[in-house]
């Protein structure tokens, strides 16, 4: 009897936790409104939405399961190439392409997840970098299939589900990407607020204790790695469908580092960090990059150092919080 009660209590608590905050409604309504209200910014907004999805997928790994990856572009690039090749050889219908790319990248994630199970943060960082480098080399060498350094062009993009054309129509393309982002974000939110998501956080907190209360650590990590890889693959497919060429930059180290930086800027472990971070990153890149494109790198590095020094897991928000606290203390003094 009492055990039934506790189960009911636990499931009620889970439901409370996953209920949407009013700010989240505001956020998504604003995002939907931007399709109609910001016509000149659709190209940038599309980029933000795609990077956001990529960063959300990394957040599943880093923010919830505690797996540090510096090679997440491996799955992004793989998804993009799969989507492009699928569109060229079979059908140009985008949603089918997304599903195929997601499944393919997920499979790659499933296989490679076995490599990241063991070891410390450092080993994982090295192994994930290694996986991405190997994927890069493969894409570079198989130029008969991938176009190598020249990139892969000529990918057909048919109307979505046969009636919604997105090819070279920025507004529609953005709407399409935003809908995909929202749908996958919704699923990710359900995942992290499920008992599965809580078990991931337990593993992140203390693997030894997690396994001693009966959580199958390795299976859970394999599962979340697979899901995250599939998400990254879908993000890559989205980028492939909205830009005319798939190239090696989809898979290079810079992309893995950038997505990590975006997530770190926005903060890990609450899913919105990826969206906030990619928006801030790309807007900053656009404004600073216009002034001194060469030295954009300096500011990326500066941001990383500052965040590593002062902000642990809430990114810019912890810096704001610190400043507010400091000001509050000063005001409180008589």
């Amino acid at each position, binding site marked *: 009897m009492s055990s039934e009660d506790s189960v009911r209590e636990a499931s009620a608590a889970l439901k409370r936790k996953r209920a949407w905050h009013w700010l989240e409604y505001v956020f998504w309504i604003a995002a939907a409104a931007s399709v109609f209200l910001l016509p000149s910014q659709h190209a940038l907004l599309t980029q933000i939405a795609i990077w956001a999805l990529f960063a959300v997928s990394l957040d599943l790994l880093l923010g919830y399961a505690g797996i540090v990856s510096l090679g997440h572009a491996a799955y992004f690039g793989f998804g993009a190439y799969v989507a492009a090749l699928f569109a060229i050889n079979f059908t140009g219908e985008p949603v089918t392409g997304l599903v195929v790319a997601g499944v393919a990248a997920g499979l790659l994630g499933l296989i490679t997840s076995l490599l990241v199970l063991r070891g410390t*943060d450092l080993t994982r960082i*090295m192994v994930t970098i290694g996986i991405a480098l190997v994927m890069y080399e493969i894409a570079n060498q198989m130029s008969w299939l991938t176009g190598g350094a020249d990139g892969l062009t000529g990918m057909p993009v048919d109307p979505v589900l046969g009636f919604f054309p997105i090819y070279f129509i920025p507004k529609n393309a953005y709407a399409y990407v935003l809908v995909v982002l929202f749908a996958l974000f919704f699923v990710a939110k359900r995942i992290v607020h499920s008992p599965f998501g809580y078990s991931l956080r337990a593993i992140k907190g203390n693997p030894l204790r997690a396994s001693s209360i009966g959580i199958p650590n390795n299976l859970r990590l394999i599962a979340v790695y697979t899901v995250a890889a599939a998400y990254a693959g879908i993000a890559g497919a989205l980028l492939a469908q909205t830009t005319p060429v798939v190239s090696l930059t989809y898979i290079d180290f810079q992309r893995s580092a950038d997505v990590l930086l975006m997530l770190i800027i926005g903060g890990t472990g609450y899913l919105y960090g990826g969206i906030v971070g990619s928006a801030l990153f790309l807007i900053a890149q656009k404004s600073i990059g216009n002034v001194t494109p060469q030295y954009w790198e300096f500011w990326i*590095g500066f941001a990383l150092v500052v965040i590593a020094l002062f902000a642990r897991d809430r990114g810019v928000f912890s810096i704001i919080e610190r400043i507010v606290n400091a000001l509050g203390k000063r005001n409180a003094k008589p």
Partner: protein
Amino acid sequence: MLTILFDGIAYGMLLFVIACGLAVTLGLMNFVNLAHGAFAMLGGYCAWLLVNFYGVPFFASLPIAFMFAAMIGLVAERTLYVHFYNRSHFEQVLFTIGLVFMTAAVVDYFMGSQQRFINLPSYLQGRFDFFGVGIGKYRLLIILICALIVIVLQVILGYTRFGSRLRAAVDDQRVASGLGINVNWIFALTFAFGCGLAGLGGALGAEILSLEPHFPLKYMIYFLIVVSVGGTSSITGPFLASLLLGIGDVAGKYYAPRFGGFVIYTIMIVVLVLRPQGLFARGTAK
């Protein structure tokens, strides 16, 4: 064939001289310093400026490059790195990658983005035949200097008081400090020395490793391979690992240029998965 072996050894020796400081940092303070290559780059640029613009003889520029990188290393260690000793590997990685990006941009700003070459004295250029094996004079010099450094390092580590304190601190930091060894001080010195060696390696290797602002990023993975494959518990591990990597890389680029990188990265992954402690590490779990 033997020439490739010879070039590979020279390359591997260079990698070792640059990366051995990283091995000590990682082994001693458990600190992941991805910015280690940046110190090598600074040493390289220092030597380049001195030799090409101020007419300093090449051999005199090497110790100056060493001192320069060591001083910068010491300052960076005392002001920035100390804040990160007790943080997670992940935060250390963020911080040091940030440093790499910043140095790359700063060097780009002051030195330009093209590749730089140090003017070598004429007696170091060219190659001679030794029983049918073509031997580059400059590469021979690299091997000699690096071999000397390896021997000196072994002597310092194995036979001096400082060396035994350092080894004690690597093996067990807490017990070592309990015995009255000033671990922080040892670490600061070792860090600076490691940076200095990196700077020396960068100056020596400017010719082979191509000196340009993205040098630290390009070779980061190589230094990490040396450290993670070789393990951090001794000097011999990273030494053997860098020789293997150097020979493998040169031979791979020569015999199978299309698959060189691929093979090395794959081997790295396999070694890391099978032996997370490193290929040559002692069987102790830390």
